[in-house]
């Protein structure tokens, strides 16, 4: 404990040196921009800027790249809330309630809650990272394919809480998403599925083009098709900050989101997007007023936004403690370390204490920088909504196309996005929710891979899911939740879903 604090003071002496501070600041600014631009997520941002860091020394380079990473997580929520366009994949869930809040004139509140939630999650999980990195990393390694499969199966149950209204409609959309997730190279056999001669489809449909198309662009088309031109929201200054009720409503979701996000983040191979899905479902399950979700529930913004930021720090645990990448972004950062002659691995903390602790300390600093940077920007961002739609929407369209193209220099991705925009438009005209499609698309390849890897490990024996304690526990939890879901059927009670369906009917009649 004492040693940790001593090390941390070494870290702060590194992190607060003007040069490192400057690069942390630059990283945060660039990250925020990257996050705000629709489509361009942290991976694309880091990849584009990686070569630029080759001239720096290792600590500065890593600090800057980390700044981009968590800066993008902060910035990603902005366009989700204001325009229903996910700035990066993990902000998909924020689109739902964040945008609904914005439509109610609470855009400022939603942005502020997202920023504060991200700050708390970021800071708390750095503390956890600092004290628990080595033991947690070893625990996280025990998550092999069977455990991962169980976790994802649990994640699939999230569907039940994804959207209001008809369960049948949600399931139909989820199945559509799962089917879309089948496109691409089968990673176990190398077989190309549904590629129709387009090599680019080998990697399947990207989450970002699909989400931007389904959520954002379809929204633009829907607005354009309205008979009565919608009023431009004119936010007033006193409405920028969340009310005390909103603060209270966001406190526990932030706490739960932080814990959940951090734990999911440390598991190798898992994505931030899953942490935000699970957090959203959890909040809805625990909420006393689940029917508010989808219509601007504060918890639906606070939970997922905290979770995806905590997952960012969580992802650094295996990277720093063991030198193994827990996802594509830590993998790029590990490469950046190697370029600077720092060999990442279990010995890093002893061989390069200044780098390790400087990095940790810079994360504290970075989170403060981001909060200071983002809170005043809330006012500015909200004012974007004052721009008349006939200027704003074409601009969003252009930014979306440029952003999605830039991620992998692929025109195919732009076409995917436009096709998804059309699909989203039609589906939403028919009253289908589009969020379950994205969930299905994300889960399908992971779930399939984990299942088949598990069976490859066990030579085809399904017992592997029961024999391994973590997997068995997770699957038992999933079974329990399913049973819980069946209770209303048996007791014939009226649960929130039925109430919601009734209420919706009432509205329409």
């Amino acid at each position: 404990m004492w040693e940790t604090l001593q090390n941390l003071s070494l870290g702060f002496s590194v992190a607060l040196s003007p040069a490192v501070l400057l690069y942390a600041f630059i990283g945060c600014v660039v990250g925020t921009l990257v996050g705000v631009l629709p489509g361009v997520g942290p991976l694309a941002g880091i990849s584009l800027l990686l070569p630029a860091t080759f001239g720096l020394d290792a600590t500065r380079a890593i600090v800057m790249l980390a700044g981009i990473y968590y800066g993008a997580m902060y910035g990603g929520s902005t366009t989700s809330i204001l325009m229903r366009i996910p700035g990066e994949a993990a902000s998909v869930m924020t689109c739902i309630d964040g945008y609904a809040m914005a439509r109610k004139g609470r855009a400022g509140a939603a942005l502020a809650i997202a920023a504060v939630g991200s700050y708390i999650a970021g800071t708390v999980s750095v503390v956890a990272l600092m004290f628990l990195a080595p033991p947690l990393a070893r625990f996280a390694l025990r998550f092999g394919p069977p455990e991962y499969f169980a976790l994802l199966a649990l994640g699939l149950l999230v569907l039940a809480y994804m959207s209001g209204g008809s369960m049948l409609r949600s399931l139909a959309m989820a199945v559509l998403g799962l089917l879309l997730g089948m496109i691409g190279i089968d990673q176990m056999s190398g077989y190309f599925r549904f590629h129709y001669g387009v090599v680019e489809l080998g990697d399947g449909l990207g989450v970002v083009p699909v989400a931007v198309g389904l959520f954002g662009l379809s929204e633009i088309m829907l607005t354009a098709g309205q008979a009565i031109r919608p009023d431009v929201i004119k936010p007033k200054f006193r409405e920028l900050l969340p009310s005390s009720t909103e603060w209270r409503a966001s406190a526990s979701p932030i706490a739960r989101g932080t814990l959940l996000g951090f734990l999911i983040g440390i598991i190798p191979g898992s994505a931030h997007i899953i942490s935000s899905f699970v957090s959203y479902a959890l909040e809805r399950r625990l909420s006393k007023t689940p029917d508010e979700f989808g219509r601007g529930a504060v918890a639906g913004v606070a939970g997922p936004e905290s979770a995806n930021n905590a997952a960012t720090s969580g992802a650094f645990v295996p990277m720093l403690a063991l030198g193994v990448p827990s996802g594509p972004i830590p993998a790029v950062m590990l490469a950046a370390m190697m370029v600077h002659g720092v060999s990442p691995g279990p010995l890093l903390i002893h061989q390069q204490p200044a780098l390790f602790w400087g990095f940790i300390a810079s994360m504290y600093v970075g989170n403060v920088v981001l909060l200071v940077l983002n809170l005043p920007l809330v006012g500015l961002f909200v004012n974007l909504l004052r721009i008349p739609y006939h200027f704003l929407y074409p601009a969003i369209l252009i930014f979306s196309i440029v952003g999605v193209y830039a991620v992998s220099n692929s025109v195919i991705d732009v076409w995917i996005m436009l096709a998804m925009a059309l699909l989203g438009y039609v589906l939403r005209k028919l009253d289908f929710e589009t969020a379950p499609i994205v969930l299905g698309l994300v889960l399908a390849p992971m779930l399939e891979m984990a299942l088949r890897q598990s069976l490859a490990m066990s030579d085809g024996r399904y017992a592997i899911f029961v024999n391994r304690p973590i997997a068995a526990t997770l699957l038992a939890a999933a079974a329990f939740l399913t049973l819980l879901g069946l209770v209303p059927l048996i007791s014939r009670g009226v649960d929130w879903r039925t109430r919601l369906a009734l209420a919706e009917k009432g509205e329409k009649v």
Partner: protein
Amino acid sequence: MTVALTSALLLLMALAVAVPVVQAEEPYPSRPITIVAPFPPGGVADLTARPVAAAMEKVLKNPVGVVNKTGAAGAVGMQFVATSKPDGYTLLLALSSISIIPEADKIFGRQPAFTVDQFEPLALISADPTILVVRAESPWKTAKEFIEDARKRPGQISYSSSGVYGTLHMAMELLSHAAGIKLRHVPYGGAGPALTAILGGHVDALASGPAVVLPHIKAGTLRPLAGWGDKRVTALPDVPTFRELGYRDAEFYIWAGLFAPKGTPEPVLAKLRETLKQVVADSDFKTAMAKLETPIVFKQGEEFRTFFEADARRLADGVRQVGRVEQK
């Protein structure tokens, strides 16, 4: 930073402009050259391409940029270069997957995305033998014990790989064939996850590039058994090669080489070959590769062709031995 953003932007613009312009006779190079890395940033191809580009820029006094065109295990970027204008302004930094992908396409009876003879080999830049590692607490102390045990229990010892038909998979297949053993393959999505799998105890063995596993060997969590090279790895002088152990066909390298599209004019090729000779002698380039712990192995002309063809033959055999996975 603004410099980096501007240069990234310029690069994109240059790429956009570079493709359609029809060139009149003018000295080569007179506009920016693009090296396509068909894998994402941070991978072997990308990390090799960047110092190569930087050194080429110095030698040619002409901008040289790296563009990551990723997807379909590298096929997207390789196809892009195969079909781009053979004018010396679009080059490819390829790994051994350049010989694997067309072979796998053949097995599945599909229209190949590209073929090897659409490229003109320029130079081999680096070649790193893979090494076989197991966890420190596992029972096998030597490669001999490992192979004997595998022979006794066919299909019981498992290994992770970077993906089916991927480099790490091929290395193990070549060994399995040479030693007449059968191992259980669990593919992962990339070399990173494959390493995580062995550290977590989900598989028993892994073939890996030395640089990636060296820290774990030093920390005592992984044990090296043998290497696939024709010589021992410098950093691991006590670890034998499979060649020494009598498995002569188990030879495998993670290599990186530079290619141009077929049909590039001979003067341009000559200029590029001459440039690359100076690139590998460049001190900044040497430092960059040393930091990556990747040995520079420079081969050109006939020498590279021989290496490339022998490697391609071994890999083609390997892919055919694996066959179509889903039919098993």
